């Protein structure tokens, strides 16, 4: 049994999204943050100043630490955006706009 998978939740048929081009599995109802976490990805942004890695922090849309680029749109809160089949999720550097 994969130790990273939750022990007892079976919430429907898994589907795939891509993270920086790599396929990862997601479940219906999962936020992008949750899908990334359950694939072992804990960081998906580098900060504007020091370029440090960040991922989810508050989990409820308050802190804006979890910003990520989804389908080409930067600054989406991964903890709020639901994962949908085929979503193209990419690490966001800095402001997410090429600058």
């Amino acid at each position, binding site marked *: 049994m994969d130790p990273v*998978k939750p022990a*007892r939740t079976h919430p429907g048929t898994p589907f795939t999204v891509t993270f920086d081009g790599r396929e990862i599995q997601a479940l219906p109802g999962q936020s992008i943050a949750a899908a990334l976490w359950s694939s072992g990805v804990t*960081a998906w942004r580098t900060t504007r100043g020091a370029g440090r890695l960040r991922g989810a922090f508050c989990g*409820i849309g308050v802190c804006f*630490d979890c910003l990520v680029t989804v389908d080409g749109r930067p600054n989406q809160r991964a*903890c709020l955006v639901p994962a949908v089949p085929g979503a193209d999720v990419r690490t966001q550097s800095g402001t997410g706009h090429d600058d």
Partner: protein
Amino acid sequence: MTERRPVLAVIGAGPAGLAAALAAASRGVRVVLVDSAPSVGGQFYRQPVPGPGARRSQMLAHQRRTWDRLRAGLDVHLTAGRVTHLSDRHVWCVERESGRFVVHALLGPAQEESAAVRADAVLLATGGYEKVLPFPGWTLPGVVTAGGAQALSKGGLSLPGRVAVVAGSGPLLLPVATGLAAAGTRVVALIETAAPAAFARQARTWATTPVKLAEGAVHAARLLRRRTSVMSRHMVVEAHGEDRVESVTVTAVGADGRPAPGSERRIVCDLLAVGHGLLPHTDLAEGLGCRLDGASVRVDDEQRTDVPGVWAAGEATGIGGADLSLAEGHIAGRSAAARLTGTAPDPRGWARAARTRTRLRTFFAALESAYGEPPARWPEQVTDDTVVCRCEEVTAGAVREAVAELGAGDLRTVKLLTRAGMGWCQGRVCEPGVAGVAGCALAPARRLLARPVPLGVLAAPADPTPPQ
């Protein structure tokens, strides 16, 4: 056409907002229930988006019954058109307009468009968010708020990490540890800053596990007993790791509020869930000019704020758990309905809820004093190179310099000089930490907008639409 029913906008669909919506809708009022989440439930009854094959959620029996009752009641009102649920709407401003209100909300997670709803009265049931005090390493990936770990493992249905430490202070830590264990995480330590007496005070009303913990709750409690070291009067002083948290240093808290010398120990983990209590969301209330009591929205016996037409209920008015939020919401909804339909509210009608409210407020006041303040010397542990404002990457050193060299004497000046608290989160996350490091009082910040709003929306706000 029948006579127009008065419209009550309820903002927040957690326990407080749901109870309020049901109470008002049964008493002749049209309710528009606005919430930023995709489905109702708030933080306690957090619902995963229903997918094919979704299981019925598992919760403790009395919570299950309460939730079923709320859900069934809501469905009846939704079908009858007495309640409209606007999901995925982040309210960023409530405006007063000649005796009525306009509720402005950003749509969906993208938040690039705004919609507006007009109402005769508003009821704020926006709940709270978690307070986290900074320490070296708290910005590493894998360090999350306690409630965030809970949210990720509940609504996200995911397992946040494999080996977790749960730390900080307050009654949320135990349900969070239980939740993580139920999701299959190994919780190696539960570290509480307060004295052991605080644990003893935890009544079951709060320490019970919330909704989405699956059938594992009992099993998890057993696992926690067997595998988790529970340390009171201890704190995490540093999180270590390169790209993510790999271990934490824990110390005992000495009598002087400093780490007791020689008590340090390292604990290996890949998840640190940390929290120091909850703070009420008060931005919308402040924007409307409602008076605050400390950090919470001030309300009277009917849950009215001091602004006519504005009610507030639940954790926005003070932290006290789901059952207190339900009682307050019920009272607020009844009061609002009576006043909107031109009848005098009769408190005898909500006597039971009022008794529950009194009992739980007393209980939580006692609990809060049992947990007490964080150790007075915690800011000493925050090294100069520790980032205290996560958004703007302002270090503790910069904050100290603003105080010592530039003479900043209050939080506002510190912010202006350092940009701490001026980023995306508008200071919600860093304010308690920045105030502590600066040695200033934590004054409530007047946030003009409850959410960062795109310029395009501000330039062309939406026209209010009557609810369908």
